[in-house]
């Protein structure tokens, strides 16, 4: 099976879905790249090069370079979706979501509900998050909790190249608005990805490690860290299950509760400040649905309640580390 990067896996899903369905269009800042500039079209493909090569293949009608206006990009994409296209809009950094949040939570997420189920909104918002890139407090957040709490939105956090392709394919074929939250730190991670198109369903957790001593739930870029922690713990004889729910909305509660039933110990790793985080949400799930199964307090490994620091040493300390995950699991034992 071919081994490709997370970036390439996303690019491949976009290319295959655009080839399969003419209604799939891309729009965003520099997603074509170079159009109207040097004439070297398709040279950039977005700030991270994810859409590179798609402009020459599909042209300016389907790969649309937009002005630098997030409210225009998302508003236009939501309108296109509800009138029959299947747009994939790129919001360069999730940090910029504030200026287009009305279009997302008060418009796109509510069309189906408010139009009596008659409107479909097959909109995908591709965006990226995550700290560790020395990009400062306004370009390093993750913000999935803000999106997860909105009814009507589906929220995806792919943690591997295989998952990125299958989940994005599913997102594009989905008739509801989906926020596809990519992790900056994963773009160069490589893994086995089939060349053929495939879908990974929403709401089904991936089990990356099996163990009966504890359960770690992690999302996005925290998944490889949770796996590394599990492998370190295994060397000390502690066997933990690692669950990646893949989508924060819908959430595979059943997988989490089933695992908790076996292990009785839960650690949630969330790249987010702690208040109203996924960590808090899943801890609430555990205590409300599986209190009798719990053998120890739920461990929460999150960022502190501060903006993402710019000083490199502070930024490194801000993001949950493998060492903190190991420590949190040990505390539950």
């Amino acid at each position, binding site marked *: *099976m071919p081994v490709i990067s997370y970036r390439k896996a996303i690019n491949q899903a976009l290319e295959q879905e655009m080839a399969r369905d003419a209604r799939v269009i891309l729009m965003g800042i520099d997603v074509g790249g170079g159009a109207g500039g040097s004439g070297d079209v398709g040279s950039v493909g977005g700030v991270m090069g994810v859409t590179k090569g798609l402009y020459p293949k599909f042209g300016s009608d389907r790969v649309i370079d937009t002005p630098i206006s997030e409210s225009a990009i998302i508003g236009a994409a939501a309108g296109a979706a509800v009138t029959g296209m299947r747009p994939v809009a790129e919001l360069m950094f999730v940090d910029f979501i504030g200026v287009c949040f009305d279009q997302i939570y008060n418009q796109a997420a509510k069309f189906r509900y408010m139009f009596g189920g008659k409107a479909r909104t097959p909109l995908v918002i591709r965006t990226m998050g995550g700290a560790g890139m020395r990009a400062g407090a306004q370009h390093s957040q993750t913000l999935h909790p803000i999106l997860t709490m909105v009814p009507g939105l589906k929220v995806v956090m792919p943690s591997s190249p*295989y998952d990125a392709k*299958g989940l994005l394919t599913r997102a594009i074929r989905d008739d509801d608005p989906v926020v596809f939250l990519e992790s900056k730190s994963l773009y160069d991670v490589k893994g086995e990805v*089939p060349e*053929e*198109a*495939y*879908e*990974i*369903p929403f709401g*089904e957790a991936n*089990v990356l490690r*099996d163990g009966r001593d504890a359960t770690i739930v992690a999302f996005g870029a925290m998944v490889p860290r949770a796996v590394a922690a599990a492998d370190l713990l295994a060397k000390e004889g502690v066997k933990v299950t690692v669950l990646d729910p893949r989508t924060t909305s819908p959430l595979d509660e059943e997988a989490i509760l089933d695992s908790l039933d076996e292990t009785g110990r839960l650690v949630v790793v969330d790249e987010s400040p702690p208040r109203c985080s996924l960590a808090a949400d899943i801890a609430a799930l555990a205590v409300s649905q599986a209190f009798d199964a719990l053998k120890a307090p739920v461990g929460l490994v999150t960022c502190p309640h501060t903006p993402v620091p710019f000083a490199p040493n502070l930024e490194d300390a801000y993001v949950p580390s493998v060492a903190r995950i190991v420590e949190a699991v040990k505390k539950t034992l």
Partner: protein
Amino acid sequence: MLKAIRMPKWGLAMEEGTIVEWLRSVGDEVAEGDDLIDIETTKITNTLQATNAGRLVRIVAGDGEVMPVGALIGVLASEIADEAEVDAFIAASPVAVVEEEAEEEAAMAVQSLDIGKRINVATAGSGKPLVLLHGFSGDLNNWLFTIEGLKDAARVIAIDLPGHGASEKDVGDGSLAGLAADVAAALEELGVSDAVVAGHSLGGAVAMRLALDHPALVSKLALVCPAGLPGGFVSDDFLSGIVNAEKARDVKKALQLLVRDPDTVSRDMVDGVVKMLRLDGAQAALAVLRERMLAGGDFAALSLDALPPVTLIASRNDAIVGAPDVSALPPGWTVHWLDQAGHLPQLEAAGEVNALLRALL
């Protein structure tokens, strides 16, 4: 003469193995083919057999140790050797020998053939061709222990049937004749004729159809828990379990029907099948095959009397195709019954199946 015992490589994906248990102790005399070590991979646990006779003089990696593929794990001596000699042998031995370097021509190669549709094929070894056809919802990796075990004695060719593995998902009308025609085209592309063809389950029925429709390609048949024999059945619990599976846990439940001990179905095994089923068109292709199998006409049309020599490997604990009525089979078939396996003996009792196949080469 000292001989290294190394961590084997069972299948392309294997990088390391865990030594579950040494079945022999230091000082034991070992014959070629004796069971030596139970080794666990992420896929399944299998027994490593001795490839040389001799006395086990050293266990380098003990029970519970995880070693990379090619690592030295023990030493056999064909003559009396003193401890110092063994120490020197171990010290001089490379830490890990990767098989592709050691036995280049025997290493497994995967290629995709264009026969008007894409057919994925793995080949290993040289000599008389041994063709391996997997069953419903399987893929060529179902034969990983067979490929590894017999590549020293044959040109082993394992094929992903249409609709399966990395082959194209187009299964046409799903008939045995159509599947056999695709296998025939792939074999012709590879320049193979007069082959020993081993088929498992649905692949067994395809092998029979292949021998009837394309007799020049097939010299002998080995049928491993084949579908379509008199007295047998096809479990729709399994077929529809796979065709309608939505989540990994549905797939796991279906796969557990295949084996005698449900614990042999590992997370990796489930993941492999789940990944295959998610590919566009995969479950639709399997749905076509399921309907065709349940209709049964293709099985009834197999002229068992007209087949080349057949070795039948059947399992008494087979929940998927049942136990065939041997009295209804043509005279001259060689029948072996297995007691320790379910429907996947090439994985559950690999040593036994490999020995039976080796005898046909």
